[in-house]
Structures are given as structure tokens and as C-alpha cells.
């Protein structure tokens, strides 16, 4: 199976001998469970340490061991770190996929392969390098059973030599990777060196790709979105986490467990948090709601199938007005779909999750920084609006390695929303749970355990009046639903506003969100440089939409809504929101092959639709 879209091969001829510096995509094809993750991380870090902007994407099967897996490192001097459609340098380690991987390369690419695979017979328009890995490994690793793992570190050395990555940085990256495991670090370093020396003595550089030191990563960090979210939730003062393992969300909670154990347990050994693995997603969301009702900052993390299971409880939380944060690390659905491929396909189902008239707040991070900051926004909004807030991440963002500026310490105080204390009740004498006192649609609540005879109220779905007494009166129901709508309208002014990047007198607009951002910003440059097309760009960061979104559509003749799903889900949400005469300006530009969005796909589709 090819992991990239097949690129038409240019006929014959030798690869060009241009020198292409700090602009390439390196793909490593291995077998799942072969320990290649360490090698790939080392390669990624070594390039990063040389100051070159970089990203790493793991394309893996739904499997623990034995099936093919690919890791793609993109290094780009301009800071484009989205997926690149073409692969420039293939490291072919997996006999099962090697042939197809080679056949799908564009002309001029380089291939590094295990000697017995004999791949150089397949094409004459590529640059081939072969390495006898088993022989090299045998010399550095006497223990036969470790050889399979160490073998992968050999290619790191070879790649370093061929691309001119400094071995000093490789060594530093190996030490970081194996941290306290000194023996493992030494063994891996020996393997990398063996590869480096072999390449130096035996391989003649014929390719065009080079890494050169630059200064674009100073001070930056490498992290994945799930870890960034975990940190964000910890600093947001989250106290209760309940979850059910599901790819690609599990690592969010698992990383959070590590951080919380390290930083949220007092000297007396007592925890300021509870993390409970539930029996299923139904229970996970139930616990989030129970905890939110009782005043905790509670959350769960899941993916599409989990969101579906949470549907009934989500409706109750909407009507009963209970805070909670749900991370949806979107992936291709359903459970037996492509659970390890990325997607932005849960937008419609989440926006209206549940029965009856429900509307949910969604936040949509596009970067590591936003995974961190939106964690805090999510908890604040959930408590301010007494409702569930969904953070719509995806597999590409959550599980892949991204370069980022370091996170800034949150300075704004935590916002706990309208909660009445015993002292408040002493002063007020009582309260009506669902009364719109402030005209923003948001009532005041009390927490169970509040020591005041007037604190208690009865929580149930929509069948209640302002005083939370049971009611099936038509006017009570209608008034309550109208108030809930008012609350949602209020949220428009509080959710994160979109980011708008202007072109030069553009009459074409692009609307995007989440991880599509990285393909879009690169595509905008391609459109300008290659086609002379100017575009303005609006990046959505939340649902409900803010006023800027309507203005943006009104200001452009045509607006392309870029999204990673088939049915133009975000465009559908926009249609429901904008004035009817603006709807005709919206065009869908969708990408749905399970791979992260790449710039070229956007450029190609947009220019075709523009008739270029």
C-alpha cells in the first residue's frame, strides 16, 4: 500500500544534481513493533537541533506488531511543517512494502534500502543507496535478539552521512532518547556510527538533498498535541479525569497521568486530582457530568466512536446545564474503519450531539500552543456556560510530533462561573437555578454539599421551571429552550475568535481550521507564487461562529472551505449560520484519504475550481 498519493513519473533520465537544502520529506518504511520509533525520533531531533524547522508524522496501522508503518519527517527552511505530498528520500526497511513504496516515488527521489531487497532494478530515475544492515549490526551488537531493534539505528547514521546531518547532534539526540539507559544509548550510538562510517566509505553521494545548520528552532520544543493538551489541562486546574482507552486519544490521558503524578501530588502523598479508567465511554461521560455537577473541573478524552456513545448523556448535560470538557481526537470512523488515520469528520455529529434541540460549543486547536491554551479556554467556558465544551483535535495533531514555541504560563485566573456559596445564599436568602438573572441566558448554580438550607435544587433534563421544580407546562418548556438558545448566542462573544490573514486585495477567501491550517498556509504561498492567486484566510477556532466569520464571507466573492471530511461538515454548519444570500459564495474543498492534508492538494483543487 502506498502512503502517498501516486505522483506521475517523469520519463527516464538521471536525477538532477541540484543542491536542495533544508527542504525535503524523508519517509521511513518499517514494520510495526520493530522499534523504529526511537530511530525516527533521533533523526527528527538531530535535524531540529541543527536549527531546521521539522515535523514528524507517524502513519501506523491498527496493529501492535507485524504490519507496515511509515514515519515521515519533513524538514523545511520556510517553516512549512504540514505533510508534503511528495517523498524525497525513502528509507525502505520493510520488504513487504518496499517495492510499492519505490514505485510511488516521484522522479529524482533518493532511496536507501536493505541490500538483499535489490530495489535498484525497479526504476532508473531514482538515486539508490544500499546498505548490508545485518552485516553491520552483527559487528556492533553481539546479542542476537537486540539486533532487530538496533538495526534501525544504523539507517540513522547512513542518512546522517548522506544528508550531512552532524553526528554530534545525532549523539545528543540518542542520549536524550535513551536518557537514563546508558547501555542502550551506547549500543545505539555504536550502531549509528557503524552506519555513518559505512556510508562514508562505501556510498557515493548522488542525490540532491542536504541539511545545513540554520537558526530557526532556537528555544523551541518538540511535542505532540495530546501531551500539549495534557499539560494544558493540568495547568487549567483540572481535578477529575475519567476515560476509556481509544486510539488516538489514549495518550492524552496517559501523559496526563504522568504529569499529574509528578506535579499534583502533595508532600503528604495526597492527590489533588482523581483519574479513573471507566468501563466504557458511557460511564466516562457520566462521571464527567457527575463530577461537573458536584463542582469539579472534569474531563474525558475520546474519539468518534466514543462521542457517539456519549450522545445521550451529552443531551442531559446540555439540558441540565452541567459543565465538562471532552477532547475529541478525531480519526476516521467507525471502530472498524481506519482508526489510526486522521480526519475532521466529527464536526456535525458533535455540534448537535444528542437528541432534541442541542447545540454544543466546540473549540478547534491547530497547533501545540493552542492545545495548551484551549485546554484552559475549554474549562473556563464549560464552567462559565455550564455546558459541555468539546475540543476538536485530530490524530495528526494529537499523536504526531510538532515543533512549537514553548508554552506561556497562564496568567489569567481560573474562571469558575456563576456558583453561589453559602455566604451568597445567606445574603440572597435563596435562588432560582434556571432564572436568567443577568440577561445572558446563564443561571446561577450551587454545588451539592453547600451548607445552606436553600442551596439544594433538583437536577433533571428539560422538564423544569426556573426554580428547577418539575414542570411539563408548555410555557416553561418553551421559555427554558429559548433561554438555552440565548446562552448559546452569548457564547459567540466568548469563544476564541478566528485568526485572519490577509492577502493583497484578494477577492478569494479560504476558511480552514485545525490541522488543515498547515497545508493551507503553504498552499496560499503556492497559489501566489505559481498562479498569481491572492487569497485571504480565516482560520476558525470555535463553534458557534463569531461575527468575523460572517463579515469575512461577505467580503469575498468566493470562499473555499477546506476540511478533512467528505460531506463538507463545516461548510454545512456555516450554511446554517450565515445569511441566505451568502451561502452561494461557499465552496467545499475537501480532503479525505486518511492522510494529513498537504498543501499541493489544496492548491490543485482550488486552481481547478478557479478554472486555472
Amino acid at each position: 500500500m502506498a502512503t502517498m498519493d501516486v505522483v506521475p513519473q517523469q520519463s527516464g533520465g538521471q536525477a538532477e544534481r541540484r543542491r536542495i537544502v533544508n527542504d525535503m520529506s524523508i519517509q521511513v518504511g518499517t514494520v510495526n513493533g520493530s522499534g523504529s520509533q526511537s530511530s525516527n525520533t533521533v533523526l527528527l531531533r538531530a535535524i531540529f537541533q541543527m536549527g531546521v524547522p521539522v515535523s514528524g508524522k507517524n502513519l501506523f496501522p491498527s496493529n501492535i506488531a507485524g504490519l507496515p508503518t511509515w514515519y515521515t519527517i519533513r524538514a523545511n527552511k520556510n517553516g512549512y511543517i504540514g505533510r508534503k505530498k511528495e517523498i524525497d528520500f525513502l528509507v525502505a526497511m520493510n520488504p513487504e512494502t518496499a517495492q510499492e513504496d519505490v514505485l510511488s516515488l516521484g522522479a529524482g527521489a533518493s532511496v536507501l534500502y536493505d541490500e538483499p531487497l535489490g530495489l535498484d532494478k525497479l526504476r532508473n530515475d531514482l538515486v539508490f543507496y544500499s546498505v548490508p544492515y545485518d552485516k553491520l549490526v552483527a559487528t556492533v551488537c553481539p546479542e542476537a535478539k537486540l539486533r532487530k531493534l538496533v538495526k534501525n539505528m544504523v539507517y540513522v547514521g547512513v542518512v546522517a552521512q548522506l544528508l550531512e546531518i552532524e553526528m554530534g547532534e545525532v549523539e545528543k539526540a540518542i542520549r536524550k532518547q535513551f536518557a537514563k539507559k546508558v547501555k542502550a544509548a551506547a549500543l545505539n550510538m555504536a550502531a549509528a556510527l557503524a552506519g555513518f562510517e559505512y556510508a562514508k566509505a562505501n556510498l557515493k553521494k548522488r542525490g540532491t538533498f542536504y541539511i545545513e545548520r540554520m537558526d530557526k528552532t532556537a528555544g523551541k520544543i518538540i511535542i505532540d498535541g495530546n501531551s500539549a493538551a495534557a499539560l494544558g489541562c493540568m495547568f487549567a486546574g483540572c481535578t477529575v479525569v475519567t476515560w476509556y482507552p481509544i486510539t488516538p486519544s489514549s495518550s492524552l490521558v496517559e501523559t496526563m497521568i504522568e504529569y499529574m503524578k509528578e506535579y499534583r501530588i502533595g508532600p503528604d502523598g495526597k492527590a489533588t486530582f482523581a483519574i479513573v479508567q471507566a468501563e466504557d465511554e458511557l460511564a466516562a461521560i457520566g462521571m464527567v457530568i457527575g463530577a461537573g455537577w458536584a463542582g469539579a473541573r472534569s474531563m474525558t478524552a475520546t474519539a468518534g466512536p466514543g462521542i457517539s456513545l456519549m450522545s445521550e448523556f451529552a443531551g442531559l448535560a446540555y439540558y441540565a446545564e452541567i459543565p465538562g470538557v471532552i477532547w475529541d481526537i478525531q480519526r476516521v470512523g467507525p471502530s472498524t474503519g481506519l482508526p489510526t488515520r486522521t480526519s475532521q469528520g466529527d464536526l456535525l455529529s458533535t455540534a448537535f450531539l444528542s437528541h432534541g434541540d442541542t447545540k454544543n460549543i466546540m473549540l478547534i486547536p491547530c497547533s501545540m500552543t493552542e492545545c495548551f491554551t484551549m485546554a484552559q479556554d475549554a474549562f473556563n467556558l464549560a464552567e462559565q456556560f455550564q455546558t459541555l465544551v468539546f475540543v476538536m483535535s485530530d490524530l495528526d495533531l494529537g499523536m504526531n510530533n510538532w515543533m512549537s514555541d514553548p508554552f506561556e504560563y497562564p496568567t489569567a485566573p481560573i474562571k469558575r462561573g456563576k456558583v453561589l456559596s453559602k455566604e451568597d445564599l445567606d445574603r440572597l436568602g435563596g435562588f432560582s437555578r434556571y432564572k436568567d438573572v443577568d440577561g445572558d441566558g446563564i443561571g446561577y448554580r450551587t454545588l451539592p454539599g453547600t451548607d445552606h438550607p436553600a442551596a439544594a435544587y433538583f437536577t433533571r433534563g428539560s422538564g423544569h421551571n426556573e426554580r428547577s421544580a418539575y414542570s411539563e407546562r408548555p410555557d416553561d418548556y418553551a421559555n427554558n429552550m429559548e433561554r438555552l438558545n440565548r446562552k448559546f448566542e452569548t457564547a459567540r462573544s466568548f469563544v476564541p475568535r478566528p485568526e485572519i490573514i490577509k492577502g493583497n486585495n484578494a477577492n478569494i477567501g479560504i476558511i480552514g481550521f485545525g490541522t488543515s491550517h498547515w497545508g493551507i498556509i503553504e498552499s496560499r504561498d503556492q497559489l501566489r507564487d505559481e498562479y498569481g492567486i491572492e487569497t485571504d484566510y480565516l482560520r476558525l477556532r470555535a463553534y458557534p461562529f463569531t461575527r468575523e466569520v460572517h463579515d469575512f464571507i461577505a467580503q469575498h466573492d468566493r470562499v473555499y472551505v477546506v476540511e478533512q471530511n467528505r460531506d463538507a461538515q463545516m461548510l454545512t454548519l456555516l450554511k446554517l449560520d450565515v445569511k441566505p444570500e451568502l451561502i452561494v459564495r461557499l465552496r467545499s474543498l475537501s480532503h479525505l484519504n486518511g492522510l494529513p492534508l498537504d498543501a499541493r492538494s489544496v492548491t490543485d483543487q482550488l486552481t481547478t475550481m478557479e478554472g486555472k
Partner: protein
Amino acid sequence: MVTIPAEPTPAGPKTNRIGLTVVEYKGGKTTLCAGCGHNAISERIIEAMYEMGVKPERVAKLSGIGCSSKSPAYFMNRSHSFNSVHGRMPSIAEGAMLANRNLLALGVSGDGDTASIGIGQFVHLMRRNLPMIYIIEDNGVYGLTKGQFSATADLGSKLKTGVVNDLPPIDTCALAIQLGATFVGRSFSGDKRQLLTMLKAAISHSGTVMLDVVSPCVTFNDHEGSTKSYKYVKDHEETLQEMSFVPHFEEIDVEYDPGTTVAVTMHDGSHLQLRKLEEDYDPTNRIAAITRLNAAHEQGEVLTGVFYVNTTAPSLIDQLNLVDAPLATLPESLTRPGREVLEAAMEELR
């Protein structure tokens, strides 16, 4: 010198140890059928809470869906209450207790809400030994949807329509004991004394209390041929123990014979005394308890009493080693680590 005789103080309304009258434990007017066993259970809950001097504000009433689950509206208006979704009250209770460990969680469920749609969350609640009281108001039928069998209906029990149940019942008590609940018993809504005693002991326990209370449905399951009717239960009830309860704030003034009585010291220092009506029954023996319950099924008995009690097993809250104060209201200084923590985390990622 003239002494003025003290005026006799007028007898005020009777109050409990925290100065509240029983009226302050009442709820709204019931909307269940006249004679419904659930109403009797609500009354016993009110008495138990009042007599134990539980502050109503500390109680969280939780329920799922069904006739049983409506009943929290009919007792203790001064307690927060959450009528959630069908079969999933356990997760609400778990979340609430994680947020505020000082709450006294009282869950009211039914046989449909527990043993059918809710069996998944029920069994996991039992495994976790969450501190809470979980009451099943068990009538063997779905009342709100007009009388279909539930999964606790006995083999051969007959509906009014003549439909006979041909699937074996789930014994929620046996299940609870097997899975880790630490105070398990069965009672009957018509047995005021036994139920009240068990509820008071339940309030004193820290861990999952699972009480299956047979509570006849007067509208759909109280006829000849039903095994959950008032008459059937009265005719077939076998009681394991005669029980008495001395709360921690009262002196024990009754001597008991250790040969015939099992005395259990509860978490709060209260004493539950179980005078054995069956020789050799040991309510601390999990295996024996399950065996006895199985025998009851074979013999067609409605067995009541405290089947199992364990006051030493750690609860979920103990296992999590939470701070003493409720997580819900911890100050930001405790829930947001300092600037240096973020800086250290960033440094690790460079």
C-alpha cells in the same frame, strides 16, 4: 426573698441530635401509586436520616429512570438531587463522589434501571466499592412503561396478562457480593423495622452499600401468580437475622451473646448487631453468602437480612489517596502548578 418558679418550657417539636425536626427531611408529595412500596422506602429513608442526625445538605440523592428513580423527589428536599439517565446513575455517583468525597451519596434505582439497561455500570460500581448507598426498589416489572417483566422477575412469575417469565432472574445481591460491594442486604418495603435498621447501618458504612428492597408494584405486579406481590413476599420471606443498631452517639446498653449474635462495628463507630436465626451463618464470609443466596433460589425463598459486610476493604476514594478537602473547591494555588513546573516541562521538550 421570693423565688420565681421557672416556667415549664413548652414542649417544642421533637428534634434530632443536630437540632432538626423530621419535617426538615421531607420531600415533595409523591406522584407514585397509592400503596406503592417505593413510598414506604422513602419514609424509611427519611426516618433513618433523621434518626442518624445526617445533615440534609451533605446528602446527594441520585437516580436513573423509572418509578423508583422519581422517588428522590419525595424525600429530603434540602438535599441536592440528580435524576439522570436510564441505567447510568452509578457513573453520576462516581463523578460526584470524586468531586466531593464528603458527600453522602444515596442512589435510588429500580430493577430495570439496575439489572437490565444499567447492569454494566452497576457491576463496575460494585467493583470499585465507591462509598455510597445504592438502593434497588425491586418490583420485577417496568412500571412507567406499564408492566413489562424486568430481569429480576422470578422464573414462572406471571403478569396480569398471563405472560409467564421463562428467564432466570439476576440476583443483584449475589452479584454485588461477588464483585466487591462491602455491605449487601435484602429487605422488604413492608418490613419497617428491618429496613430502617439496615438503612441506619448503611449510613454508618464507608464503601458500597447495596440494598435490594423488594417493593411490590400495586398496579402491575401484585396479583396472584406474581412472586413480587405483598402476599407472596409475606408468605415466602425467610429472615437471616434479627437486627438491632446502636448509633455511634448512643451508649450500648444491651448485652449480647457472641454465640448467637454477630456484632459489627461500623466505620463511624456505630454497632450493628445481628442475632442469628440460622446457625452458623457468617455475614463476613463472602462465599457462604453467595451459596446461601443460591440455596434461597432453589427453595423459592425470599431471603432477607444482611448477607455480607466487610468494614476493612478500601474504598475507591481510599485507593485514589485524595486530599481530604473536596476536589471541587480546591483553590487555584493547589490545582495549578507553579511557573517553574511549566518551565521544567518545557526544558525537557527542547
